[in-house]
């Protein structure tokens, strides 16, 4: 770290935070992360001794709503993350500098802090047309991405775009938009999927990394277990209605007004790993299902092509380019086989009948078993 940088604690003190409220901040952070109170001391220690980690936040093909979500964080406040926890040295959306002055930062920071900065990626690189469906500074975004990743300590994949590909990668993916783990293959990548991810999940992941100096436990797909360890369905407040078999049948029916389960309206809660039903959105105000619309599975790989959204789970496209649901395919096959069986049974019956009833007029060819050589 640069010699002139201050620790997080020094900075908070300098900015007028008392030691008491600093410690309170640490225990709140611990609570927000779902940690035991003893960890608060550990967080405090980390913040007292570590300078702010540089974060370079790059944008590929995306809609910037992951950034928008990030600034919605209530605990910690986005401003505290940006000004106190990390050093957000590059972020197209918020930074003062532009053009050459902005580009220079992407050269300087990796040189100044090799192996020490975090690369955060929102969106993803398109590979078609030599990468020129996303151009930054006259060059393909994918080249810049790889260059900045080369010396990063760790990489955060924000949102469904960076993690899975998201909407621009939906069929037929005209730009060949590609999740970042396909182009950055030699760095730890923390995937924080969602379209967008929940604000407090984003800041929760960052503050965990900053305070503990390590990346959180990840599941087999690279997602932090603490937020992506369960499905929406597992903690959904409408789950009792699911178990009871009480479903919304049409929009705005009595069930909809009573908060019944949205399974039959296509809710993807049973197949979606995210923290919406636990952490909820925008300071706990609500989440998609609470607001009456099913989950569309926005944190899942390929969710755009697992539609249509308003079909119950088993009815959705089987996903191999066939425009039919699993049930349609199965029923059609069963129909064909059933018809085949009937036809075969008919033919067999005729044959059988012929066999047991020797034709009286032709004795040169008796249908007798004994005829076989």
């Amino acid at each position, binding site marked *: 770290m640069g010699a002139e940088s201050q620790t997080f604690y020094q900075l908070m003190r300098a900015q007028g935070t008392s030691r008491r409220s600093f410690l309170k901040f640490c225990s709140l952070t611990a609570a927000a992360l779902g940690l035991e109170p003893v960890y608060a001391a550990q967080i405090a220690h980390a913040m007292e001794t570590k300078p702010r980690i540089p974060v370079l936040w790059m944008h590929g093909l995306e809609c910037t709503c992951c950034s928008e979500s990030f600034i919605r964080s209530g605990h910690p406040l986005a401003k505290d993350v940006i000004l106190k926890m990390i050093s957000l040295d590059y972020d197209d959306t918020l930074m003062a500098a532009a053009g050459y002055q902005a580009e220079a930062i992407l050269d300087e920071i990796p040189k100044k802090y090799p192996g020490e900065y975090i690369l955060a990626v929102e969106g993803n690189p398109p590979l078609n047309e030599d990468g020129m469906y996303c151009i930054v500074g006259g060059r393909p975004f994918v080249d810049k991405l790889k260059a900045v990743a080369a010396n990063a300590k760790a990489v955060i994949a924000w949102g469904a775009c960076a993690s899975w590909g998201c909407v621009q990668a939906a069929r037929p993916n005209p730009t060949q938009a590609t999740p970042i783990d396909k182009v950055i293959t030699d760095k730890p990548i923390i995937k924080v999927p969602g379209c967008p991810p929940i604000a407090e999940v984003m800041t929760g992941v960052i503050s965990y990394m900053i305070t503990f100096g390590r990346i959180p436990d990840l599941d*087999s*797909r690279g997602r932090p277990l603490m937020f992506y360890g369960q499905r929406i369905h597992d903690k959904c407040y409408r789950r009792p209605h699911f178990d009871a078999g009480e479903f919304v049948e049409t929009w705005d029916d009595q069930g909809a007004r009573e908060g019944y389960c949205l399974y039959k309206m296509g809710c993807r809660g049973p197949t979606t790993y995210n923290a919406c039903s636990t952490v909820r959105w925008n300071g706990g105000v609500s989440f998609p299902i609470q607001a009456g619309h099913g989950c569309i599975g926005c944190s899942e790989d390929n969710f755009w092509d697992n539609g249509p959204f308003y079909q119950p789970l088993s009815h959705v496209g089987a996903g191999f380019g066939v425009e039919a649901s699993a049930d349609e395919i*199965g029923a059609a096959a069963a129909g064909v086989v059933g018809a085949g069986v009937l036809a075969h049974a008919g033919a067999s019956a005729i044959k059988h009948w012929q066999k047991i009833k020797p034709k009286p007029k032709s004795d040169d060819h008796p249908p007798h078993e004994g005829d076989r050589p």
Partner: protein
Amino acid sequence: MLDHPSPALSDPPQAEVTAPVYVYELPVRIWHWVMALAITILAFTGFLIADPIWPLQMGQPYNHYMMGDIRFAHFVSAYALVLAMVVRVYWAFVGNRYAREIFLPRVWSRQWRGEFVKTVRWYLLIEPETSKESGHNPLAQTAMFAMFLLGVIFEIVTGFTLYGEGVGYGSWSYDLFTRWVVPLFGSSQTVRTWHVLGMWYLILFVIVHVYMAIREDIMSRQTMISTMINGWRFFKDNRP
């Protein structure tokens, strides 16, 4: 069937019948019917899980547990199926030679392949009659292996993958299946889709299988359905 000789045999002069063979030992028979019942329940409840077709139920959730019961039945049958399959695999090792047939179609045997072709011709109504089979004919063996065995394993793997998602991280089914199966398929949604497709695959097998069992019982030279009940294969004629 022996007591009621089919008309086919009553017409020609009565021939001496080959001695019966004990094919399906008791565990195989019990397994067969337990498994058949389990799959029937699984498909039925699976349908209802996929499509809860009943109309809007009103009230307090604690008044009903419809979906919960249906899922419970699905899971109980699932465990029954798995247990039955475990017993069956064990029996493949310790049972008679017929107990192994569906696990290992003898594709490497030239004679087996010859019989295979012949059976196909028989089903295409070209061949006037089947060979005598004390176990399964090669085509049946293949179907039992490719459709039934692989299908059931597929349903068990995808089923416990979905089950592990519910029981959660750290459960045995999560660790054994969910952890790798979901990434393999791409997403939990895709696993479900394939679980449903797997059901249809098994349904196809069952349609053909039940039809064949009845057909062969009537048309082939040996008993079928009763074999799966009493274990003995009886032959209807005495030719090779």
